[in-house]
């Protein structure tokens, strides 16, 4: 390759610059090597057909055609896994609440609660999202997640003027809902079982299914105690008593807590068994909601404690809205940048080691 005109290489470089950054990062070196290997010794200009092909492929990749290769290829499977897990979490949560409240109410007074329409809508949406997340019907899964997520948001928006503290308390879940809908929209052709493996995807799904029915089992096995004055209490095995009406509380005892904890660990294990790049991206995607879950109670402590004491309640000020919206966004961007930077460093280090090994081998061969 030493006989090649350096101007040819520069011209190829200009053509390769038309490709998306991610594709260049992954293949530019190789492509340049192939282009130079295929050129004639004193060639100064790229061939017409080669040029046309490079331009066509670059444009095709730029407009999102298939084969948009990149080191970021791991984002799509990570998004598929994230979307599935969050939809599963939210569906499991809804099913758990419904099971506990409907069966708990039935145990107390023999009547079945009529669930709000939004609950059915949300459960249907999450169910569609979960079912189609395993398939290549990307838009159906995304539509289910968007419908369910927006219905959850709509309920909070409607209740906000009278119950602003609840919006703040569940903000992390709303962020998760939005993130899941976005992830299922952006996952492309990736499916979660591709990243997790079919067996682990089945195990994880089973763990979520168990988590969904545990509160119902707890409610069915709970002890209902009736008092002479018409009052009653319902106590789950090993759990707390919920005196009077359930008041929106789960009836959760050891049946929910212990096997529930085991199921959660099984899910975590399945996620951690995904490849390291996918795991890193999952951490970046889960971090905003987890950070909100941890940070919001202390940061908004005064608001959460006092706002409902006023009539009407005090609403969030612009600065608090900015924090709630900007904090998760900034955290995700920072996480994504850290992942990209860390992997780039690891890649360069590996490349350097390979070159060093190569040089040593050559040196050894030369001396012998």
């Amino acid at each position, binding site marked *: *390759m030493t006989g090649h005109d350096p101007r040819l290489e520069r011209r190829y470089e200009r053509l390769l610059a038309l490709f998306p950054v991610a*594709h260049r990062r992954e293949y530019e070196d*190789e*492509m340049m090597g192939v282009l130079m290997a295929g050129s004639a010794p004193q060639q100064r200009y790229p061939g017409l057909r080669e040029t046309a092909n490079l331009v066509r492929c670059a444009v095709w990749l730029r407009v999102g055609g298939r084969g*948009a*290769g990149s080191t970021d290829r791991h984002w799509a499977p990570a998004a598929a896994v994230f979307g599935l897990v969050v939809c599963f979490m939210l569906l499991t949560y809804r099913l758990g609440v419904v099971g506990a409240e409907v069966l708990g109410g039935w145990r107390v007074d023999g009547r079945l609660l009529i669930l709000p329409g939004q609950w059915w809508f949300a459960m249907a949406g999450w169910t569609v999202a979960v079912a189609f997340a395993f398939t290549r019907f990307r838009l159906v899964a995304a539509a289910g997640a968007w419908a369910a997520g927006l219905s959850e948001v709509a309920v909070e928006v409607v209740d906000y003027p009278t119950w602003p503290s609840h919006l703040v308390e569940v903000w992390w879940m709303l962020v998760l809902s939005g993130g899941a809908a976005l992830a299922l929209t952006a996952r492309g052709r990736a499916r979660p079982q591709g990243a997790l493996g079919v067996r682990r995807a089945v195990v994880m799904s089973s763990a979520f299914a168990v988590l969904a029915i545990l509160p119902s089992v707890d409610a069915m096995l709970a002890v209902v105690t009736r008092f002479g004055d018409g009052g009653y209490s319902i106590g789950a095995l090993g759990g707390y008593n919920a005196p009077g009406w359930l008041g929106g509380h789960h009836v959760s005892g050891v049946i929910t807590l212990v096997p529930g904890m085991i199921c959660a660990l099984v899910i975590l294990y399945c996620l951690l068994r995904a490849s390291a790049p996918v795991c890193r991206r999952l951490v970046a995607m889960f971090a905003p909601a987890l950070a909100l879950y941890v940070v919001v109670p202390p940061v908004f402590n005064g608001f959460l404690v006092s706002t409902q004491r006023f009539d009407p309640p005090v609403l969030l000020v612009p600065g608090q809205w900015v924090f709630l919206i900007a904090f998760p966004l900034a955290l995700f961007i920072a996480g994504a940048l850290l992942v990209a930077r860390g992997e780039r460093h690891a890649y360069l280090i590996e490349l350097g080691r*390979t070159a060093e090994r190569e040089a040593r081998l050559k040196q050894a061969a030369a001396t012998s």
Partner: protein
Amino acid sequence: MGEPAFLILTALVAEPKHGYAVIEDVLDISGGQVRLHTGTLYSVLDRLREGGLIEVDREEIVASRLRRYYRLTGVGQERLAAETVRLRRNADAAAARLSGFSLRPGTGVA
């Protein structure tokens, strides 16, 4: 599966190959009919990697440039075998029909 993907997978059956070796082998396999251009090659290689049909076997530094060798995966082998059967079936069907075909007077080129 398009023709370039089919030919690239075929080129990788025998042993892992780097990009330029794939181009040369595809030219050979196709009897000089298909010369893959670099843009096409790396678009298809990327898509095959994404689909798990091929994977990187090893990397080398040659003349200060990265050179990757790609190899066929088990999934790739299965897909190539299935595609081969499909193409052979189609080719057999076409051959069978062509064997009993003759141009009727006035319907073809003289």
